[in-house]
């Protein structure tokens, strides 16, 4: 039975429409005009307990709005929603105890005090006794490699240390469902890797369900066997990254190392030329023509080395977002 179930989920915002300049300001003051913006349109999906699902989409696609509806912060305009057996928008205490929402750009830790003070408050808010709270803090701190940082004022911590402390605070009550909105935003590569391995570890240890948005596709590829791709408010893809890759570009990438450099025009008949840098060439070739094209390349050109791979998912999704249209 799914722990998260969304059916026809939609959210429309009414926003004021104001033209620039003094005339626009006066018109806006005297006769305000509004327009409806559909942030999320009829999105449906179900997530089983223990799954880690990546939530992808360009800025403004509706990811955060969906996360906020799932966590109960905002009401859906239409559709049905159930999380951990609750209607999120009612924000019942038992529901709030079973979820957490981490937003990379927002913080819940008390800025002037060490994280331990915020953790003590959270333990009291969630009714976790002192002994159990201490045990959980030790366990999570160990998983996150946090030590003396917990006794240093939050304002003195680095961004990475702060994010790890935020995660600890958000998970102290051991929620069954984690909504993580850009938890690794702004972190360096090492800190991102640490957060990733922590999330994988946490999911394995507690069987928590995770819905994760990240602009770093390394987070998604490392953690999420399944991704939801939201685009212009609608759900574009629900499946594996590989399926997404096939769907976005039904091509394979062929890397060639030639014996001698050739002009770009020489590759036109084999596929789409991605790059041609001296003797190193990258081509995109449709899968249905891959065998024939590779055979021709080897027969017709002087090739030192040849490698067939999937194009990087970052490039495919980036291209989709950049084009602003789906195939």
């Amino acid at each position, binding site marked *: 039975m799914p722990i998260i179930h969304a059916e026809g989920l939609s959210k429309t915002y009414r926003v004021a429409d104001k033209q620039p300049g003094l005339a626009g300001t006066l018109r806006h003051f005297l006769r305000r005009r509004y327009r409806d913006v559909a942030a999320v349109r009829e999105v449906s999906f179900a997530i089983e307990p223990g799954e880690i699902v990546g939530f992808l989409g360009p800025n403004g696609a509706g990811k955060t709005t969906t996360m*906020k509806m799932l966590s109960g912060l905002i*009401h859906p305009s239409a559709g049905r929603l159930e999380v951990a057996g609750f209607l999120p928008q009612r924000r019942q205490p038992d529901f*709030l105890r079973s979820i957490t*929402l981490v*937003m990379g750009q*927002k*913080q819940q830790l008390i800025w002037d005090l060490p994280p331990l003070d915020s953790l003590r408050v959270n333990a009291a808010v969630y009714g976790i006794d002192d002994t159990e709270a201490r045990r959980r803090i030790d366990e999570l701190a160990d998983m996150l490699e946090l030590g003396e940082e917990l006794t240093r004022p939050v304002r003195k911590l680095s961004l990475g240390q702060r994010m790890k402390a935020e995660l600890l605070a958000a998970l102290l009550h051991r929620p069954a469902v984690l909504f993580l909105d850009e938890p690794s935003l702004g972190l360096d590569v090492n800190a991102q890797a640490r957060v990733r391995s922590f999330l994988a570890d946490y999911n394995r240890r507690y069987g928590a369900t995770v819905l994760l948005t990240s602009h770093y596709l390394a987070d998604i590829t490392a953690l999420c066997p399944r991704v939801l791709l939201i685009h212009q408010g609608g759900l574009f893809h629900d499946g594996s990254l590989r399926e997404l890759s096939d769907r976005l570009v039904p091509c394979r990438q062929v890397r060639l190392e030639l014996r001698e450099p050739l002009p770009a025009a020489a590759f036109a008949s084999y596929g789409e030329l991605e790059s041609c840098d001296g003797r190193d060439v990258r081509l995109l070739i449709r899968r249905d023509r891959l065998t024939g094209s590779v055979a021709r390349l080897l027969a017709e050109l002087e090739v030192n080395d040849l490698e067939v791979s999937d194009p990087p998912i970052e490039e495919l999704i980036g291209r989709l977002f950049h084009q602003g249209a789906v195939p």
Partner: protein
Amino acid sequence: MSSGRLRLARVLLGSQVATMIEYRAEIALWALSGVLPFIMLGLWSQVEGSTGAAGGVDGGAGIGLDRLQLARYFLSAFVVRQFTIAWVVFAFEEDSLQGRLSPYLLQPLPPLWRYVAAHLAEQATRAPFVAAIAALFFLLQPWALWLPTPQRAGAALLATILAFTMNFLLQSCIACLCFWSERASALERLLSIPLLFLSGLVAPLETFPPGVRAAAQWTPFPWMIHFPAQLLAGGSVSLAQGFAAMAAWIAVLLPLCLGLWRLGVRRYSAMGA
């Protein structure tokens, strides 16, 4: 109260006191900035001196209060003001604009309790500075020293707690307007004018013309400063009328605040967070 709630109150207060201690210098300056009653004491003493019997300790009744009564009243007004100040509208507005409200709404604790704890913690941090200023006052004006009777002190304490409750609820109602307007604090600034003049901070209500005084008593302001201050100073006040007025205002403001909060959160949820 269950042990879990007691522990929550203790931990919440503890963390807020620790935060306020980080800002002790700022809080000391806030306490110092509340010396308006002493300035008014200086002015009213001059008036009393010119209309009364040459400014003696017990001379003159031109403004209805002698110099001793004025000194004790304005010191009491200072102390009461220090422990009834509410700034929830500013804190809430900032939390709302900075997006800190969202994490609060996702915890099984109504966010208003955090602000209550923050205010109580701030008062606890402010107390030593208030005591120091009061001690300095008595050092400079030893003739004004007095000790209220235990009954008066108890009644004044209760009235101060109720006055803080009124002020906190009034400001919380305005804070809830942040759900509709990004700058609800502007309204609070508007309220500061009647608070200043009708509460008794600038002048004891006894100095008001009878009509103005009667009209002021229909507003919440005199009960926030004048009534508890007169209780502490040993002035003549009607206990029954004062506590009944405070209870009535709390009975109006509490449901209004809760209603506005519920409506506001519903709007916040509907319009986006």
